[in-house]
C-alpha cells in the first residue's frame, strides 16, 4: 500500500510537468538548412521550416549580407513544413567562415540541421540549437564534435518527449522487483533502438500523425493496467511487462526518429549520428528512471502518507492524459 502511495506523488509530479504548454504535444520536428554548391560562386539554399505547434515556424533564415540572391526565392507549403528555396551568389565562392542566423529560434525548442555539399564532393553538417541560434559555416568537423552534438540532441529529445517519459513512468509503476525492472527497461531500450535505426536508415517510415496517435494510445493502455495493479488483479501486462515494453518500444522508436533528420547528411556520418543520438536518448531515459527511483526512495524515507482515495489517481490521470492525446492526435490526422 505504501508503495502505491509513493508512486502517486511521483506521478503527480510528472503529470504536472506534462501539462506545461508546448511540452505537451512533443510535435516539434527539427528544421533543415541545405546549402548545395551549384557553381564556383553559386549555391542553392533550401530552408525547411517545420510547422511549430500548428503555426508557421517563428524562426527566420538570415543569410550573410554579402550573399546576393539570384532570381526570385520560392516558397512551397508542405503538410509538415514550409520549404523556402533560393539561389545565391557568394563573392569569392567560399562560404567558410560565413555566419547564417536564425532569429526567432531562441524562443523555440527546435533544433536545425545544417548540411553543406560542395562541388568537390566534400560534405559537412552541423546542428544549430535554440541556445545559440546561428551557424558558423566551416569544413568537416572532428568526429568528437559531431558526436557531442548528436548526443546532446538525443538527450534533449527524450527530455522534451513527455509522452515517452510518461510511458516509462507507467512501466515503473506496473513492474514489480528489480530484475523485472531491468528486464522491462532493457526490452523498451532494445525495441526503440531497433526502430530508431530502421527509420533513420530509411528502411521504414511511419507518417507522423498516426504514429503520434499510436504513441498516445500506448499511454492510454497503461492507465487501466496501473489501476489493475492497485486493485491486486493481474493481467498479461502485469505478469510480463517486458513484452508490452518491447512491443510499444518499437512504436516509440519511430517517434524518436522524428528528432533526427538524416536528409542530406554525409553518408559516413549517419552511423555516428544514429549511435550518438541513441546513446543520448538512453542517457536521458536512464537519468529519468534513476531520478524517479530516487524520488520514490526519498518519499519512503520521509514516510509520506495521504488519503486512500488518492491511490487510484495516477492510473486514472495517466489513462486520461493518454485518452486526451489519443483523441487530439487522431483528430489532427483528418
Amino acid at each position, binding site marked *: 500500500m505504501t508503495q502505491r502511495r509513493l508512486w502517486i506523488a511521483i506521478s503527480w*509530479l510528472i503529470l504536472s*510537468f506534462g501539462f*506545461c*504548454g508546448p511540452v505537451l504535444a512533443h510535435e516539434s520536428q527539427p528544421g533543415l538548412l541545405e546549402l548545395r554548391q551549384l557553381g564556383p560562386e553559386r549555391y542553392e539554399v533550401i530552408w525547411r521550416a517545420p510547422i511549430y505547434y500548428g503555426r508557421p515556424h517563428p524562426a527566420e533564415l538570415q543569410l550573410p549580407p554579402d550573399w546576393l540572391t539570384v532570381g526570385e526565392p520560392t516558397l512551397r507549403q508542405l503538410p509538415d513544413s514550409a520549404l523556402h528555396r533560393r539561389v545565391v551568389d557568394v563573392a569569392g565562392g567560399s562560404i567558410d567562415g560565413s555566419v547564417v542566423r536564425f532569429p526567432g529560434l531562441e524562443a523555440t525548442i527546435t533544433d536545425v540541421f545544417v548540411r553543406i555539399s560542395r562541388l568537390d564532393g566534400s560534405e559537412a553538417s552541423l546542428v544549430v*540549437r535554440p541556445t545559440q541560434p546561428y551557424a558558423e559555416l566551416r569544413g568537416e568537423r572532428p568526429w568528437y564534435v559531431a558526436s557531442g552534438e548528436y548526443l546532446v540532441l538525443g538527450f*534533449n529529445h527524450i527530455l522534451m518527449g513527455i509522452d515517452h517519459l510518461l510511458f516509462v513512468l507507467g512501466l515503473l509503476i506496473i513492474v514489480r522487483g528489480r530484475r523485472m525492472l531491468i528486464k522491462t527497461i532493457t526490452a523498451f531500450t532494445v525495441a526503440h533502438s531497433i526502430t530508431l535505426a530502421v527509420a533513420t536508415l530509411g528502411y521504414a517510415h511511419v507518417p507522423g500523425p498516426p504514429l503520434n496517435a499510436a504513441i498516445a494510445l500506448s499511454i492510454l493502455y497503461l492507465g487501466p493496467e496501473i489501476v489493475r495493479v492497485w486493485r491486486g488483479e493481474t493481467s498479461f501486462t502485469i505478469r510480463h511487462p517486458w513484452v508490452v515494453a518491447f512491443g510499444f518500444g518499437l512504436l516509440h522508436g519511430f517517434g524518436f526518429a522524428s528528432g533526427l533528420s538524416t536528409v542530406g547528411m554525409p553518408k559516413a556520418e549517419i552511423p555516428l549520428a544514429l549511435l550518438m543520438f541513441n546513446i543520448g536518448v538512453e542517457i536521458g531515459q536512464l537519468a529519468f528512471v534513476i531520478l524517479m527511483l530516487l524520488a520514490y526512495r*526519498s518519499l519512503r524515507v*520521509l*514516510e*509520506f502518507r495521504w488519503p486512500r482515495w488518492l491511490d487510484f489517481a495516477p492510473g486514472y490521470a495517466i489513462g486520461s492524459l493518454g485518452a486526451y492525446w489519443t483523441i487530439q492526435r487522431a483528430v489532427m490526422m483528418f
Partner: protein
Amino acid sequence: MKRSNIVAPVAAVLLAAPAAAQAHLVNSGLGPFYDGALHLLLSPGDLLGLVAAALLAGLRGARAGRLTVTALTISWLLAGMIGMRLPVTPDLTWLSVLSFLILGVLVAFDTRLSPLAVAALGALYGALHGLLNGSALAAMRAAPSALLGSVLTVLVIALLTAAAVVPVRVLWARVAVRVAGSWIVAVGMLMLGWLAQGVA
C-alpha cells in the same frame, strides 16, 4: 587561509551568476519549463538556502523532513505566483543572503528545533525566495510554466537532500552535514560583506 582562498573565487562566481541571470531568462533550448528549472539551478542565492533548509530538516528526522519539504514547496509556489503577478521592486538581495546564512548557521550548530519550527523556517524561506523568484521571472516575461519548472526543481532538491540526511546516524557523517552548513555560512558572510561594500 586555504579555505578563504577557495571561498573567495567561488563567492565571486556566485555573486556574478544571479546578475547575469536576471538580464533575461536562461535559455535551455527546451522551452519555458526547463528554462525555469535551469534559472533556479543557476541562482546560487536560492539554491544554498534551499539545500540548507533541507539539510536542517534531514538532521531533525523524517517528520521534520516531510513537513519542511511540503511547506517549503507550497510556500515557494504560492509566493512565486504572487511574485509573477505583483513583482517586488525593492532590492532584497541582503535579505535573501541573510536568510540562507541563518539556515546555514542552524545546520552548522545542528540546532535542535522541533519539526514544526523547521517547517516554519522552510515555509518562510520558500515564501521569500518564491516571491523573489516569481518577480525575477515576471521581469523576464517568463511563461507560468517557468515557475512550475522552478518549483518542481525546488521540490526534487529538497526531497532528495532531506531524505539523504534522515538516515545518517554515524557521527562523522553528521559532522560532514554540519560542515556543509558552515560552508553555506562562509559564502553568506562573504556575500554580505561584499554587499556592505557595494561590490554586488
